[in-house]
C-alpha cells in the first residue's frame, strides 16, 4: 500500500506573485504524482483573476470572499466556507502563507496532517515541518536565504523531481515592460525608464513595446512616455495599464519575445508563459527568492552594501537605484534582443567598468539536482552575503534533505578571506555554546535518573541552559551571519516535544547536537574554501617569484 497522501489542500492567502510561485511548485509535484489531488484556498481578489491558470493545476479551489463572511450572525458565513472546504478529502493541509489569518484558518480545517503555520489552542503559532520552519525563520527574517521560494515550496510539499519548463518563446516583435512595483524603493524613476525605452526603440526599429501595469500605474506610465526623447516613438509604444485582465496579459506575454521589469507578479506570469525575463532587482528585493523561475532568466542587482534592506527601513536617497546604470541595462537588453543571452565578455567589452562594477548580472539555471540557482556572470568576486548563502545552501541541503549539490568551492578575494577569518571565531563560539547546552541537558538527564535527584541542581542546570540560549541570541546580534542557524534552532526549541522533563531534556540535547553538527559542517566548508584560496595564492606568488 502506498504511503503517499491522496490529497493535499494548500492555503495561500498572500498576493499574486506568491500564488504564481505556488503554481510552479504544484506543476512539478503533479508531474511526479499525477494522481495526487491538490486543492487550493486563496483570497478571491488575488485568486479569481488567475482562475484560468489555477483551474489547470488544482482539483478544487475555494476563493475566500470577505463579503460572504458578513451577516447578522458573526460566524455563519465562515461556517459555510469551512463546511465546503471540509467536504474535500484533505490528508495533508499545507499553509504556504505566513500570516495571522492563514494561521487561524489552518487550525479550522480538518486534516490528518498539517504543515506550515497553524494556531494552537492558546493562539500561538505552531510551525510544522522542517522546511516550513526554515521558511519562517530564515526567509522571513533576513537576507541569507539560499533558495528560490518555489524550491522551498517544493521542499515543503516533498517534490523532488527536476522542474518541467515551458519552451522559451523568442518569436514576435513585442518587448513587454513593467516598470512598476508596489513600492517606490523597488522601482526606477520614470525618467530612467524613458531613457531605456528610447535607446531600445532607436536601436531596434523592428521592435514594438508594450508597457503593462495596473490602473494605479497609468499616471506613471504617462510620465514615462511624456519624456521628450520618446516623442518620435510614441506610435510604437502601447500602454496597457489597467485595461487588460490578467488572462489577456498572459496572452500578450505568450505572443511577445522578451520581458523586462522590476520584481513583480508580471515577471512570474511572463516566465509561466514561457517568456525570457530580465529583472531589475532594487531595494528590498532578494533576487534568489523572487527571480522568475526558469532557465536563462536574468537579473540585474546593484551591489550596494546597505543590505539587509527591509520594507520598513527609511531610505532617503535610494543609492541602489543609482548603482544600477543605464549603460548596463541597455547593453543587457540589447544582447537579449540580439542573441537571447547575455555574454560576460561582450558586457565587459561594451560597458565601462565604472558602470558595471556597481551591479551584478545574474543568470538563472538549475543544478543537476533540479534546484534553481543564480550564477553571477559579471563578476567572480562574491559579496559576503553571497558567500554565506553558498555555504548555507550546502549545509541546509545536507541537514534537511540529506542531499549534496555538486558545486565548486566559492572563489574568495582578499576582502572575503578576511571576512571569513572574522566569522570563524563566532562560529566556533556558537559551537561551544551548543556543546555547553548538550552538557547541561545531559547533566539534568543523569540527575533525574538517580534514586534521589537533587532538585536544586536540576534548577541550576536549567538556568544555565537559559543563559546559553540568551548568549546565542547576543552572538547573533554581534554576528548576524549566524542568525539563520540561531533563528532556526530557536524555533525548534520553542516547540520542543516532550510530556515530562526527561523527554524535554532529550529533545533539548538533540537540538544542541544539531546546532553543533551544523557549525561543524559549516566550519569545514569555510576552512577548505580558505585553504584552497591560500594554496592558489602561494602558487601564484611562487610563480611570480620564479619569473
Amino acid at each position, binding site marked *: 500500500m502506498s504511503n503517499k497522501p491522496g490529497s493535499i489542500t494548500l492555503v495561500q*492567502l498572500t*498576493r499574486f506573485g506568491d500564488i504564481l510561485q505556488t503554481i510552479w511548485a504544484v506543476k512539478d509535484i503533479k508531474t511526479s504524482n499525477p494522481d495526487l489531488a491538490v486543492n487550493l484556498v486563496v*483570497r478571491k*481578489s*488575488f485568486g479569481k483573476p488567475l482562475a484560468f491558470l489555477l483551474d489547470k493545476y488544482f482539483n478544487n479551489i475555494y476563493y*475566500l470572499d*470577505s463579503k460572504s*463572511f*458578513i*451577516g447578522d450572525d*458573526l*460566524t455563519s458565513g*465562515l*461556517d459555510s466556507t469551512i463546511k465546503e472546504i471540509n467536504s474535500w478529502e484533505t490528508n495533508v493541509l499545507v499553509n504556504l502563507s505566513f*500570516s*495571522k*489569518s492563514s494561521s*487561524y*484558518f489552518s*487550525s*479550522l480545517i480538518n486534516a490528518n496532517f498539517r504543515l506550515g503555520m497553524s*494556531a494552537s*489552542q*492558546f*493562539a500561538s503559532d505552531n510551525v510544522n515541518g522542517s522546511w516550513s520552519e526554515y521558511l519562517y525563520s530564515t526567509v522571513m527574517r533576513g537576507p541569507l536565504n539560499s533558495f528560490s521560494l518555489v524550491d522551498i515550496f517544493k521542499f515543503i510539499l516533498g517534490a523532488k523531481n527536476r522542474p518541467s519548463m515551458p519552451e522559451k518563446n523568442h518569436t514576435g516583435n513585442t518587448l513587454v515592460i513593467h516598470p512598476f512595483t508596489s513600492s517606490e524603493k523597488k522601482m526606477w524613476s520614470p525618467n530612467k525608464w524613458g531613457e531605456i525605452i528610447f535607446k531600445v526603440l532607436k536601436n531596434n526599429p523592428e521592435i514594438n513595446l508594450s508597457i503593462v501595469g495596473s490602473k494605479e500605474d497609468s499616471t506613471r506610465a504617462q510620465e514615462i512616455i511624456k519624456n521628450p526623447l520618446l516623442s518620435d516613438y510614441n506610435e510604437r509604444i502601447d500602454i496597457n495599464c489597467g485595461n487588460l485582465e490578467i488572462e489577456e496579459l498572459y496572452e500578450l506575454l505568450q505572443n511577445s519575445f522578451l520581458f523586462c521589469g522590476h520584481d513583480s507578479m508580471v515577471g512570474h506570469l511572463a516566465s509561466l508563459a514561457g517568456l525570457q525575463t530580465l529583472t531589475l532587482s532594487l531595494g528590498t528585493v532578494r533576487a534568489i527568492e523572487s527571480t522568475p523561475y526558469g532557465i536563462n532568466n536574468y537579473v540585474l542587482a546593484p551591489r550596494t552594501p546597505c543590505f539587509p534592506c527591509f520594507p520598513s527601513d527609511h531610505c532617503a536617497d535610494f543609492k541602489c537605484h543609482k548603482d544600477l546604470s543605464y549603460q548596463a541595462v541597455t547593453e543587457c537588453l540589447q544582447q537579449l534582443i540580439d542573441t537571447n543571452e547575455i555574454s560576460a565578455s561582450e558586457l565587459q567589452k561594451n560597458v565601462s567598468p565604472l558602470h558595471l562594477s556597481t551591479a551584478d548580472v545574474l543568470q538563472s539555471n538549475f543544478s543537476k539536482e533540479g534546484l534553481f540557482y543564480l550564477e553571477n556572470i559579471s563578476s567572480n568576486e562574491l559579496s559576503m552575503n553571497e558567500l554565506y548563502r553558498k555555504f548555507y545552501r550546502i549545509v541546509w541541503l545536507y541537514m534537511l534533505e540529506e542531499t549534496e549539490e555538486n558545486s565548486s568551492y566559492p572563489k574568495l578575494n582578499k576582502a572575503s578571506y578576511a571576512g571569513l577569518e572574522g566569522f570563524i571565531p563566532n562560529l566556533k563560539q556558537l559551537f561551544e555554546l551548543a556543546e555547553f547546552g548538550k552538557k547541561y541537558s545531559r547533566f539534568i538527564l543523569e540527575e533525574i535518573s538517580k534514586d534521589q535527584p537533587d532538585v536544586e541542581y536540576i534548577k541550576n542546570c536549567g538556568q544555565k541552559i537559559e543563559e546559553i540560549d540568551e548568549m546565542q541570541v547576543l552572538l547573533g546580534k554581534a554576528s548576524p551571519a549566524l542568525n539563520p542557524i540561531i533563528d532556526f534552532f530557536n524555533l525548534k526549541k520553542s516547540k520542543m516535544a516532550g510530556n515530562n522533563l526527561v523527554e524535554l531534556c532529550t529533545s533539548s540535547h538533540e537540538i544542541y547536537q544539531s546546532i553543533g553538527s551544523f557549525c561543524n559542517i559549516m566550519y569545514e566548508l569555510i576552512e577548505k574554501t580558505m585553504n584552497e584560496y591560500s594554496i592558489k595564492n602561494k602558487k601564484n606568488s611562487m610563480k611570480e617569484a620564479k619569473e
Partner: protein
Amino acid sequence: MEDFRMKLQIETKKISEKIKNGDALTEEDMKILFLTSYLAEDTNE
C-alpha cells in the same frame, strides 16, 4: 459591515482576555480571530 466589524471587535477583546489569562481557545474563538485578522489584511491589501 460597520456593525459586523464592531461586533467582531467586542468579541476579539473578550478573546484577548482569555489569551492573557492563558485559557484555551474554542473553535468559535478561532473563527473570530480569523475573521478579525482576515478582514484587517483585506483592507490593507
